[in-house]
């Protein structure tokens, strides 16, 4: 009982249509990738730092310090690249799936707001006024333009959320009684989660940090600000991850020659992310004195439930690929794996991304385990972890998507399928090695975000016991630099390369989906308004007691500039 909820587009119809949508989508994802290019080129210098090699002062004289470079790296990669790319994913595919046109002037204005924010925050960082890293904990105080710029990026992305929900509503009006098609469902749930999740950072930045850095209020309570930051800081990682999941669920089964084995389980996984990704932020604050231990425990336990939708995803995607591998003639327990389209760079990049996420997810469970976290909190283990998750699972999936999506959007042929494949493998190998080196160093209590290759003489050698993993980390930096060069050669080669004939423009590889659960369950899951209210209620329960006591008992401190 295959349900053909997903329309198939023909290549002939593809070429000349949806021009406006393609242009704005290309603007979003290419701006994001541009930010990534700058951020990722700084990355190898950080990796070399953790190998004990300081090239910052010699090679990057335009940067005032390691920490200024690290601020750029973090902000551009995890705040700018992801938010722009996500806007492209979450707006474009629902519009195409539903066959509903975007409100283009509105979408372009959301792009303009985000771009203005990027330029403001970027200028503030480059001018060395805001060397506060991407977590910007007060009382370290950046320039007001830095905070305002970040706020604009978030506001622009929330405008995108409004547009995604409008697309869904327009479709439902025209199709009363029908269940939301799958890609739109996944995108809408992601945006609802983002709307709920951004409350914390919006309050932190708009109510406190902007007025404080502009001199309108004299102080900010650091513990309260940290708590508001991590209210958003955990669900934001799912905002980075879910667009990758959308590609895995919606496109990978088709690219593997199979079909999505369960439509309803896919919906359940996303709904669980809406429910459980926000009321868990204290697991980033196990080491904070100002949060009661009982509430930390509650958040730790709730975090364990966020593991379940990812376990569902692992099963569903693997089974969907296995269907494809067996259709291609694969037999035996593992024989189907060899029959998968490994020469397709888009497919391979994303499967490597999934593989890295096994380690990223397992590390995440360790970080979320209250008592284990104390051994690794704020060590290099943590950047080791999130370079496997956002740095590989998400980023490598986005790379894989661009191998068909950029040709689709721009009518240009993929520059070199072989180099694309090489870039994916190199990124994967580099990041796995980086992850190994950084996790391992963390076990020796080497601190994260520290310029340890530039220690004064009396402190030389204090991290010598971590020499082996430091060597691995340095090597990974070189490998990743090669991967960055290869990937962006493919990207620019495509953008400025050969025009495609209309008939050769790749179509969107929407997969067919299979229904396992009764349709009543699916209809119940489709009542997104009610689920959103329930999720908000759960968040209020998990956060309000602590937040109220923090708001009513603030120690407001003035800002400091220590760089």
């Amino acid at each position, binding site marked *: 009982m295959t349900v053909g909820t997903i329309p198939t587009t023909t290549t002939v119809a593809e070429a000349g249509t949806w021009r406006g949508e393609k242009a704005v989508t290309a603007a979003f994802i290419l701006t994001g990738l541009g930010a990534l290019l700058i951020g990722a080129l700084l990355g190898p210098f950080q990796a070399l730092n953790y190998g004990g090699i300081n090239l910052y002062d010699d090679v990057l004289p335009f940067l005032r310090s390691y920490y200024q470079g690290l601020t750029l790296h973090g902000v551009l990669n995890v705040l700018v690249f992801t938010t722009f790319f996500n806007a492209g994913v979450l707006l474009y595919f629902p519009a195409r799936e539903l066959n509903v046109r975007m409100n283009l002037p509105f979408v372009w204005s959301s792009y303009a707001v985000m771009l203005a924010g990027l330029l403001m925050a970027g200028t503030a960082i480059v001018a060395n006024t805001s060397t506060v890293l991407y977590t910007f904990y007060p009382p370290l105080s950046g320039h007001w333009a830095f905070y305002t710029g970040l706020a604009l990026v978030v506001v622009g992305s929330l405008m995108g959320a409004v547009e995604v929900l409008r697309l869904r509503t327009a479709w439902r009006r025209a199709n009363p009684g029908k269940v939301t098609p799958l890609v739109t469902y996944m995108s809408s749930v992601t945006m609802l989660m983002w709307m709920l999740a951004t409350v914390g950072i919006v309050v932190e930045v708009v109510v406190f940090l902007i007025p404080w850095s502009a001199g309108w209020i004299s102080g900010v309570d650091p513990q309260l600000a940290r708590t508001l930051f991590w209210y958003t800081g955990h669900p934001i990682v799912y905002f980075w991850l879910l667009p990758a999941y959308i590609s895995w669920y919606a496109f990978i089964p088709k690219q593997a020659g199979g079909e999505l084995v369960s439509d309803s389980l896919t919906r359940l996984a996303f709904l669980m992310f809406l429910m459980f990704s926000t009321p868990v932020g204290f697991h980033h604050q196990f080491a904070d004195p100002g949060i009661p231990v009982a509430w930390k425990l509650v958040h730790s336990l709730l975090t364990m439930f966020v593991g379940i939708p990812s376990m569902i995803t692992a099963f569903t995607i693997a089974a969907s690929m296995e*269907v494809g591998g067996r259709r291609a003639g694969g037999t035996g327990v593992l024989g189907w794996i060899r029959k998968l389209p490994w020469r397709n760079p888009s497919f391979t990049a994303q499967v490597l991304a999934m593989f890295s996420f096994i380690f990223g997810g397992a590390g995440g469970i360790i970080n979320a385990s209250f008592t284990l976290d104390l051994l690794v909190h704020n060590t290099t283990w943590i950047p080791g972890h999130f370079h496997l998750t956002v740095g590989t699972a998400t980023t490598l999936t986005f790379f894989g998507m661009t191998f068909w999506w950029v040709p689709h959007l721009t009518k240009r042929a993929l520059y070199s399928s072989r180099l694309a494949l090489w870039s994916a493998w190199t990124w994967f190998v580099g990041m796995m090695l980086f992850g190994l080196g950084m996790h391992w160093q963390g076990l020796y209590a080497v601190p994260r975000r520290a310029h340890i290759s530039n220690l004064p003489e009396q402190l030389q050698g204090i991290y010598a016991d971590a020499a082996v993993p430091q060597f691995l980390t340095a090597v990974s930096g070189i490998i990743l630099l090669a991967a960055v060069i290869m990937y962006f050669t493919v990207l620019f080669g495509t953008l400025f390369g050969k025009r495609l004939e209309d008939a050769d423009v790749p179509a969107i590889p929407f997969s067919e989906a299979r229904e396992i659960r009764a349709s009543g369950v699916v209809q119940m899951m489709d009542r997104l308004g009610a689920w959103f209210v329930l999720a908000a209620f759960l968040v209020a329960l998990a956060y309000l007691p602590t937040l109220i006591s923090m708001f009513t008992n603030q120690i407001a401190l003035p800002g400091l500039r220590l760089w």
Partner: protein
Amino acid sequence: MDHATHERIAKWERRWLAASGLMSLTFVILIAYTLATEGGEIVQAAGRTDPATLTTSALFAQPGVRALGPNEYQVSLIGQAFTWVPNTVVVPVGALVRFYFTSRDVIHGYQVERTSINLEVIPGEVATLHYTFDEPGTYRVSCNQYCGSLHHEMVGWVEVVSATEFARRQSAQAAPAAVDGESVFASNCASCHQANGEGIAGAFPPVAGHLPDLVRADRAYPVKLVLNGLQGAITVDGVGYNGQMPAWSHLSDDELAAVLNYAVTAWDDPEALPADFVPYTADEIAAERQTPSSAAEMLALRGELELP
């Protein structure tokens, strides 16, 4: 996909989900168990304190190690850019050690290698945890929260020694050694103001070329400055600074007098000082210590100085 395949997938899917649920539950039980059995090492709040009032706080006015009872010690520690006060903590092996932490400026992180002592040291918060070191040795302490441009140099130590060695060191401490201003400067001031006294433009103001001006304007001001610290925007030689000078009241009168006498002449022509300048004395510091000023009052005081 045929019906049988479909059913087989659904069967395995149910097993997989059950296994996932069971795994999560196991983790939950393990977390709860370890928390119940090792709860003492989990950081907790011990009240709140405004960083501006640390010089008069019962816990933090004189940070360091003190005995609470037989084989039980209290260690109060302040994090400040870019050092721990005290930077080296000496405790006896096997003793119950009750740590108290706070920060004088921005957020720092205190992690002791090879232990589960790992916490955010947040201004405004007093954090506490207790720990017993079972192995003697020197443990490295790294600041693991970014706190400014010399964050990586913020490294301290915990020395865990035998009970007899601990007693020996305490009696040695009671007899004060001669104080050398240059070494006091090197271990407390140089990380920000640099060994050459020139500071870092825009981040940490210079001492060289500036301190004699301060002495000429008001001889007592530098004494108040090292005792009380300073917070807020200032300008030196046309360059703006908006950082924080910590209070150094935990240093002894002898040490503060020595470091001031070192710093006024180390880089500048003695001619820059008033003709009738005599070196600072410990008594002068002790007298000034009786009337503490808040960091904000210090900023106002600086505004009243007549500087070139």
